[in-house]
């Protein structure tokens, strides 16, 4: 197309009946995704949204883009496959905290090692929403939401610190109800080359009566527990990726911040580094793969005679 098309957030809205609970924080995350896509003017047909299973898993159905609502805990391998098949797509993986850090923890860890260029958004509500509010892996020891019979006796994991140790190259945290800021994080994540990980604090008014809008948006300092890292002069960026000292310092700084909780909870980008993506590494080995999407290569005319002759 020769003309410049202007996409607005509305162009990413699917004409589908939404059955999240009224007031669910997921609405905010959905809007932020749509708004980020509009900011970046990515044509809807160039976007693939890939989710696991959960309330969060229904997200693709609400986005006007190629949508894949896969299996519980498997959005990351799916997204990786999709992206490696077609490097011209903007791939967004989305899913719940149970999906991503519980059953999907192995993929969360190992995806961090790969650095394929896509963005992963976790809708972190500290509960298993769709199965009626059991504790998720982000719920801390001793904590009890109204849907639990007893307080959690396992420790909560720290997704940001986990992402650092797994090797993610863009690590951020957003808040579902600050749609504008979240949209800017998602847009930055999409722009980042490599796997971007964004943990989003998501309210679940139905099951999580602790981490509510009221809780987040009240607190000692200026009426909110949440504060923006970038507003404090925090610099998440590794400026010289070849400088091991700087890399470690920035990782350590991110881990340290990630343990802040309670009265002051940071949101924003915790860590960012420019490293070759998986696609870059592949292209080094196989240059054609750096130029064209695999889906566009005609691989049906290969000459295998040399392989056969080698067997004689």
């Amino acid at each position: 197309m020769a003309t410049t098309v202007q996409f607005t957030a509305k162009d990413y809205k699917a004409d589908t009946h939404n059955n999240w609970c009224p007031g669910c924080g997921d609405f905010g995350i959905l809007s932020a995704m749509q708004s980020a896509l509009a900011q970046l003017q990515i044509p809807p047909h160039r976007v693939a949204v890939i989710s696991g299973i959960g309330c969060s898993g229904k997200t693709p159905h609400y986005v006007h883009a190629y949508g894949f609502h896969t299996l519980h805990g498997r959005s990351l391998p799916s997204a990786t496959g999709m992206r490696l098949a077609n490097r011209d797509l903007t791939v967004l993986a989305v899913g719940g905290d149970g999906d991503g850090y519980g059953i999907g923890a192995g993929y969360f860890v190992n995806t961090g090692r790969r650095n394929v260029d896509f963005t992963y958004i976790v809708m972190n509500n500290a509960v298993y929403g769709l199965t009626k509010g059991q504790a998720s892996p982000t719920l801390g020891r001793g904590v009890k939401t109204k849907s639990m019979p007893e307080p959690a006796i396992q420790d909560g994991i720290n997704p940001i610190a986990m992402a650092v140790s797994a090797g993610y190259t863009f690590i951020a945290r957003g808040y579902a109800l600050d749609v504008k800021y979240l949209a800017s994080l998602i847009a930055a994540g999409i722009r980042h080359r490599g796997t971007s990980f964004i943990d989003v604090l998501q309210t679940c008014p139905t099951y999580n009566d602790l981490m509510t809008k009221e809780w987040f948006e009240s607190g000692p300092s200026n009426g909110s527990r949440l504060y923006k890292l970038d507003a404090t002069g925090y610099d998440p960026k590794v400026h010289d990726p070849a400088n091991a000292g700087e890399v470690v310092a920035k990782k350590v700084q991110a881990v340290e911040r990630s343990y802040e909780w309670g009265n002051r909870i940071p949101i924003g980008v915790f860590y960012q580094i420019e490293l070759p993506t998986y696609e870059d590494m592949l292209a080094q080995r196989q240059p054609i793969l750096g130029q064209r999407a695999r889906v566009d290569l005609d691989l049906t005319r290969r000459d295998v005679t040399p392989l056969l002759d080698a067997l004689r």
Partner: protein
Amino acid sequence: MHESDITWLIGGPQGSGINVSAETFAKACLRGGLRVFSNIEYHSNIMGEHSYYRVRADTRDHSVLSERVHVVVALDDETLYGDPHSEFPQHSGHLHEVSPGGGVVYDAASKRNPQAACGRDDLVYCPVPYEEMLKQAMAATGHTGPVGRMRVVQNTIAVAASLALLDFDLSLFAEVVRAGFTGRRAPLAALNVQAAELAYGYVRERYAASFAYSLAKMPRPARLPMMIRGSVAVGVAKLKAGLAFQTYYPISPATDESVYLEANAKNYDLLVVQCEDEISCINMAVGAAHGGVRVSTSTSGPGFSLMLEGLGFAAMSEAPGPVVFLWQRGGPSTGLPTRQEQSDLRLALQSGHGEFPSIVVAPGDTREMIEDSFESFNWADRYQMPVVVLVDKYLSTAYATVDDVTFDGLNVDRGLLWQQNGQDDYLRYAFTETGISPRSHPGQPGGIFWTTSDEHDPRGHITEAADLRIKIVDKRMGKLGLASREVPLARQLALHGPADADVTLVGWGSTKGAILEAMEELAQDGLVCNFLQMRIMRPFPTDAVAEILKRARRTVLVENNYSGQLGLLIREHTGISLDRWVVKYDGRPFSQEELAEGLRRALTGEAARVAVSHLSA
């Protein structure tokens, strides 16, 4: 004796290089105009356990191994005597397996005497001073380092010794040895050849004259045939079929195929990803299939068990694939990771919870591995469902001799693709007459669709409507019937031999070679057999099978497993019980002799089920 059909065996500890030795021997045979067939047995271990390689060389092709071992080449004592002092011995060695008049090549430095051990005086015992000879060869070629670092040359010595016994032209062997050392390793060629010559002369002088067997002398072929094994045949076929993407997680015996593809990825614009586990493998593959490329993954039993949820999703979302290669091994659980069994058929047929379509095909030999691997990608695309190709450890590692591999008649068919048509009415799961909906792929303008592992409406959004549910189940499952009607019957099954026979043998997959040779053997007994070979087992060609079996006089099932899975499957679909079953589940493939014996016992005895196992190692 003027026997052309020679079986040669080399044994030694894992990691001592017997593969290369055996393959070098086999290649030399090819250069001598012979045809070879081979098999390796090894433990799930990196170094030290007993492994052995059998090569059957003849003037004609064979597709099964024989137990009539004419020469044993022992790199260590265990090859001869087993491990009798273990609490539960693994095996009792190969000495007693040697055919009357056969030869035994072993290390003269061994403390044990094989003749004393087995008491047989019909064998030709050839003690060869491996280390001594190595030292001589090193001296002769100016190698000065420690002998220990060159120990692997002793394999060459042992093999060359056996060649002398078998009166084989050493220069053919030397040729292959030289070809094996290229680049930096080229200087080793001379050492090995020198060592081979010494050993050859040593044995020729002392023992060869009295030896009863020899490799036949045939003209060197104008064009050397290929020595091909299943992992390579499948790999080549995948490349030819347009594979874009292979995922894998290491597991015996599946890894070989992926390693082969990895080695050739660069030259063929192929992407091979080693994943963190098999769940990642299958889901990455399903993602890529929806992404629009041809994709496959390869695994064996334990990995396959982990892939079921992903396979169900592929089928539910009507993804065009992936094609899953299931290289079977000894089960259940971790089982016998490096051994042979055909025991994953039932799981392949019901590869997940609930009811969903898939195609299950089992090639029986090299040609069929190529055809079925290739066509599987067409089926995945045409019918938008996963395909499972059942192969096994035996097919993967056994070398067959093949003159040519052609792709005649194999054409790429990507199925019904959606094309932008100016209209804004695309429904990914539209109900159509055939049940196939044209598919678009992400990136196509106008082709936006949704897909979910939940039940869905034509647009791909979740539905729980009772009426839609029925329609979409009918659509999804109905594609199985379509595939059954469209895929040529000749691809689904084959009846080998005369239509009218005394006995109909029934089997699938890697037993094909054994069964075909057994038919020949039984024919010599005056028994006319034919062989119903099942290839596509899902969708099951019920009518064709029933027709053949109803006509059959007596039927014998042959399976390399415990429970006769195909026999049960046939009865499930046709109600027909096969008369006799011959099974083998000791973790090894059928030998020619085992199958012949099994069939004779099955046909003459009382027992409906005969289990065979001759092997001791």
